């Protein structure tokens, strides 16, 4: 800069007066104009915001933060362009945007960081930079040329100060001319081709096809004639002038959507719980429908639940999903967060209860059996895809997390699940953190292979691995949760449970407290309805695997008898011995349903401590054998029937 200004000033002082006298006054004026133009462009290039992107706000990147893929591809005029995730600015960089390490900002249409100007050159100031280069080149040529003329004319008077200065100025000009002209030429080519320096230097379009070019003339006109792009930083934020208040107008829901909404709650849990169990049993590595449906997204997100929530807290925030409880769901969602903690345990419990009746079924055929379960509960015959689709429709608005996790297990028709994928973002991440990487990574690989959700994710992300992550984490959570709550599952669970066993102890007391509160109110309501759907479910379930039933039952019965009294008191012991949970289930169920079937013992059983105590009292009195028969359901839940 000093060179430029200094030498130009000298030029003006020494050379110009003579030139103006000798030739015309136009020359200095012309030179001055060019010089001023150069300076103006220089200042604009230096001080103008090149097109810095403001940092993305926290809520925008909630989905993106734990995304596995670093890149997101976008098709521009038929050419695939990769957008990279910028971890500093927290968004996927738009095409042609790059992060400048010197300025520590993402700059739109990033060209380069110019040391002469000490500023990034981006969309907004590229034009000024280019014009600066042009005008500087012209200016240098002017100075050099006129200096040369002067010198040539005063060949005999080279020792005068004027001539000397002019010579010096000429030398400086000559010296600077080479790089400046080179750079100018380079940029002229870039402009004609529609590329940025960044792209040219990194050789992005060496192959030849540049999706950003519109033709030579258009490119040039775009650089020189387009309107000044707005700046993004430092804008005045208009205050929120619009008041949003209820009641809200809603578009009319279709019949199918309404039906899905109502039924979803009931169905979801069954599906999830069963699915997670089966997956756990059989294929640990397979992507399973992580049972604990991720907590409903709306509630979780804005209540500001930290991502690092433990599994259980995220699990606990789930809405109750007992079949009889489905009616809660719509109401549940709107009141929002306050209820999540309470309802979540219920949901888990319910899922568990459904699972327990047929662990064996899980082993054999997950999806078909599960599908039928919801249908039996609902009374509809829709299976699989139908259910999923309905669920999806209904769930969308509510953002429940349940289906999402199970998507992995489902084949195709689980489109409904994917809708909740978004809600998983915080949930999965928390679960991942809590469960540890190794477990989820194995799941992730499985998920990637099996996850049909990838195609269904609606946020325009192409990240399947992210989704699998989302699916996994709930599963991990459910693993621990399931193991705690479903005693019947213990035989199958044990192998699976061990990885997540550390969580069990932790989760159970927490869950129990929460669940107990909810359960008490709901138990009585749900019991009646539970028995019938479960009976139907069991029937459907039992035929497939009668063989696995008996051994389980034996095992469970033994557990039951041994630990029936212990279990309710000490959940920690329960966590260590999954089998011990059974008695709890049994005892809880007892007062509610004397009939053997496999009623949702789960919800009843799970309530855990607070409810179990009173129940236990009943149990103890009846237990001692006076006409009380213990029956273990298919799922391993134990029921006591008075004979």
């Amino acid at each position, binding site marked *: 800069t000093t060179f430029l200004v200094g030498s130009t000033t000298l030029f003006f002082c020494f050379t110009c007066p003579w030139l103006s006298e000798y030739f015309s006054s136009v020359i200095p004026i012309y030179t001055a104009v060019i010089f*001023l*133009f150069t300076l*103006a462009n220089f200042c*604009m290039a230096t001080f103008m915001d090149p097109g810095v*992107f*403001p940092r*993305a*706000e926290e*809520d*925008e990147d909630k989905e993106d933060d734990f995304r596995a893929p670093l890149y997101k591809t976008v*098709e*521009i*005029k038929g050419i695939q362009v990769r957008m990279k995730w910028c971890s500093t600015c927290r*968004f996927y960089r*738009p*095409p*042609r945007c790059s992060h400048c390490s010197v300025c520590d900002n993402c700059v739109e249409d990033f060209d380069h960081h110019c040391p002469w100007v000490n500023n990034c050159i981006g969309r907004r100031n590229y034009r*000024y930079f280019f*014009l600066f280069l042009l005008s500087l080149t012209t200016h240098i040529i002017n100075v050099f040329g006129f200096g040369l003329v002067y010198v040539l004319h005063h060949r005999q008077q080279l020792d005068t100060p004027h001539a000397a200065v002019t010579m010096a100025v000429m030398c400086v000009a000559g010296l600077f001319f080479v790089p400046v002209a080179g750079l100018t030429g380079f940029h002229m080519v870039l402009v004609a081709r529609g590329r940025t320096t960044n792209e040219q230097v990194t050789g992005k379009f060496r192959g030849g096809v540049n999706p*950003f070019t*519109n033709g030579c003339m*258009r490119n040039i006109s*775009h650089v020189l*004639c*387009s*309107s*000044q*792009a*707005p700046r*993004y930083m430092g*804008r005045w*934020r*208009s205050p929120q*002038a*619009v*008041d*949003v*208040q*209820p*009641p*809200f*107008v*809603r*578009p009319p*829901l279709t019949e199918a*959507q309404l039906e899905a909404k109502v039924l979803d709650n009931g169905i979801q849990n069954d599906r999830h719980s069963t699915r997670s169990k089966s997956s756990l049993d059989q294929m640990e590595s397979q992507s399973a429908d992580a049972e604990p449906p991720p907590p409903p997204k*709306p509630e979780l*997100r*804005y209540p500001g639940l930290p991502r690092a929530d433990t599994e259980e807290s995220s699990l606990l925030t789930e809405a109750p999903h007992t079949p009889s409880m489905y009616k809660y769901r719509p109401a549940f969602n*709107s*009141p*929002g967060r306050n209820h999540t903690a309470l309802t979540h345990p219920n949901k888990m419990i319910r899922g568990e209860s459904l699972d327990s009746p047929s662990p064996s079924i899980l082993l054999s055929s997950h999806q078909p059996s599960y599908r039928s379960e919801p249908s039996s509960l609902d009374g509809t015959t829709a299976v699989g895809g139908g259910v999923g689709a309905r669920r999806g*429709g209904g769930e*969308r*608005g509510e*953002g429940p997390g349940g289906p999402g996790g199970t998507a992995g297990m489902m084949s195709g028709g689980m489109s409904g699940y994917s*809708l909740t994928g*978004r809600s998983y973002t915080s949930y999965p991440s928390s679960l991942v953190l809590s469960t540890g990487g190794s477990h989820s990574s194995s799941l992730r690989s499985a998920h990637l292979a099996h996850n049909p959700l990838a195609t269904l994710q609606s*946020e*325009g992300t192409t990240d399947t691995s992210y989704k699998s992550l989302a699916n996994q984490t709930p599963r991990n959570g459910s693993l621990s949760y399931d193991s705690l709550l479903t005693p019947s599952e213990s035989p199958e669970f044990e192998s699976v449970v061990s990885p997540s066993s550390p969580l069990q102890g932790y989760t159970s007391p927490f869950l129990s407290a929460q669940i107990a509160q909810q359960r008490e109110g709901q138990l009585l309501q749900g019991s009646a309805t539970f028995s019938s759907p479960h009976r139907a479910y069991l029937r459907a379930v039992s035929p497939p695997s009668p063989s696995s039933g008996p051994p389980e039952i034996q095992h469970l019965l033994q557990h039951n008898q041994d630990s029936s009294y212990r279990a309710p008191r000490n959940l920690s012991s329960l966590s260590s011995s999954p089998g011990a949970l059974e008695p709890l289930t049994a005892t809880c169920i007892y007062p509610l349903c004397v009939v053997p079937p496999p009623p949702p013992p789960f919800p009843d059983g799970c309530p855990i401590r607070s409810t179990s105590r009173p129940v236990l009292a009943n149990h103890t009195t009846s237990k001692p054998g006076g006409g009380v028969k213990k029956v273990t359901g298919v799922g391993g839940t134990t029921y006591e029937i008075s004979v």
Partner: protein
Amino acid sequence: MHSVQHHGQQPRRPDLPHCCQPLSPFHNLQELRHSASLANKVFIQRDYSEGTTCRFQTKFPSELESRIERTLFEDTVKTLNNYYAEAEKIGGQSYLEGCLACSTAYLIFLCMETRYEKVLKKIAKYIQEQNEKIYAPRGLLITDPIERGMRVIEISIYEDRGSSDSSSGSSSSS
């Protein structure tokens, strides 16, 4: 009588806490007013299929399925896209603006607003109007994309918090 009630005071409501007892006929509206809470945000991403010109995807996000009609949403996004296209158009006005700026050594920018800025103002007004008329009654709110660096259109979804309050409030106020 010993009634301490002021003129126009509503009868006391046992279901509300003491602090929320209606003091005036309008008090119930205030209970209503604060019962919407931010539940979720939907982000409409940019559509880069035609290059880096500013366009937003018109794909209807699933979260809005039950909140707003598809056509309304698409109309809004299409209008916004048109506004942005108009702003970025290279034509007579932008060329003249450039020449003028050059000739005045860019000092003209101190006085005059660029074409883009003018269109942005129009957009802001449009969004405000859409919010007032269409989105706020449905519990949604659109944020001007310029605040997000023109990368996304952010739509905030509000939920009825304390629906019991609002319902009782509305019933008593209506």
